[in-house]
C-alpha cells in the first residue's frame, strides 16, 4: 500500500480540484476568499504530487506537507466559522464543501507523512 501512497494522495488532490472547479463552473457557487486560499494550496499539489507519483519521489513531503496542512487549517477554520465568513459559503452546500475539503487535505497530509522515506 505504501508503494501507491503518493498516487493515492495525488488522486485525492485531483478529486478535490475537480469538485472545486465543478462547484464554481457548473453549480455557480462563487468561491469566497477562504476558498481561494484552499485552492492556492490544492492546485500546486495536483501538479507536484503527479510528478512525485510518477518519479516515486518520497522526499516530496517536505514541499507538499506544508501545503496540505495550510489547506486543512483554512478548510476547518471555514467550516467552524462559516456563519461569520462569507455569505456564499454559509449555506449547506458551502459548509459541506468546506468539510470535505478539510477531510481531503487532512488525508493528503496523513498519507504524505506516513509515506515519507
Amino acid at each position, binding site marked *: 500500500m505504501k508503494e501507491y501512497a503518493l*498516487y493515492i494522495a*495525488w488522486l485525492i488532490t*485531483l478529486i478535490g480540484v475537480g469538485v472545486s472547479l*465543478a462547484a464554481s*463552473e457548473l453549480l*455557480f457557487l462563487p468561491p469566497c476568499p477562504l476558498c481561494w486560499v484552499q485552492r492556492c494550496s490544492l492546485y500546486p499539489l495536483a501538479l507536484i504530487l503527479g510528478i512525485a507519483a*510518477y518519479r516515486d519521489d518520497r522526499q516530496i513531503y517536505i514541499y507538499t506537507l506544508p501545503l496540505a496542512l495550510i489547506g486543512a487549517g483554512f478548510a476547518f477554520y471555514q467550516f467552524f466559522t462559516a456563519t461569520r465568513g462569507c455569505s*456564499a459559503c454559509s449555506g449547506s452546500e458551502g459548509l459541506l464543501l468546506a468539510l470535505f475539503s478539510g477531510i481531503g487535505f487532512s488525508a493528503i497530509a496523513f498519507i504524505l507523512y506516513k509515506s515519507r522515506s
Partner: protein
Amino acid sequence: MGLSLKKRLVMATAFIAVLALFSIFFLGSEAAKKNLAMEGVVVLGNPQAKMEFLVIEDFLCSSCRSFHSQVFSQINRTYIATGQARYILVPISVIHGSESLANAALAVYQQAPHSFIPFISQMFRYAIDDEIDPVALASKVDGIDLFQLRTCVAEDCNREKLEQNLRWARRKMGNRFALPALFINGKRASTGSFSEISRQVADEGHVHHFDQCEEIVSCEEAKEVQ
C-alpha cells in the same frame, strides 16, 4: 525497457484528469450560455418599456418582505402601472421551506396573472415561516383556481424552473449574492428606499425623476397617476 505499472497508472490518470478538466470548462461555458427562462419568471407592466426592473426574491426572506411592503408598492404605482417600465420578478428558493411559496407564486401567475400581486402581498404579509399553506393564502384572493393550485403545489410543478432561476441568480450575482436583488436596466441598484431607486432611474435617463421633470409632459402624467 517498458514503463512500470505504476508509471502507466499515473500517466493514464493524468490523461483522464486533463479530459475531465476540459469537460468541466466546456459544460460550464455551455451552462453559462443559458439565459433566464421566461417561463420561470413573472413579467408585470409594459413589456415594450425601455426601463426594466429585475428583482430576485425569496418569499421567506425578511428583507424581501420589507422591500415588498415599503418599496414595491411605490414602484408599482409610479413605473409599472403607468407603463413606464416592465418589472421582472425572478422567484428563487434559498431559505428552507420557501419552495412551496415560490412554486405557488409561479402557479398563480401562470393561471391568473391579475391575481399575482394580491397573492404575493398575502404571502409577504402572512408567510413568516414554512408552516403557512400557500393554498390557504390563495383562498383570500379572488380569481385563483384553488384546486389547480393545490395540485401544482403538491406535485411541485415549477421545481425545475425555480432551480434554473437559482442557478441563473447565482451566476448573475456571484460573490454579491444578497436578497432582494434589484437590477435597473441590468445595473445593480439599491433596494433600501424608493427615493434611491427613483434617483437611479433618473440617472438611467429613460424615465425622469419627479424632482427634475417640471417641463416634461410624460412626467406630469406620471405624477397624476402617483
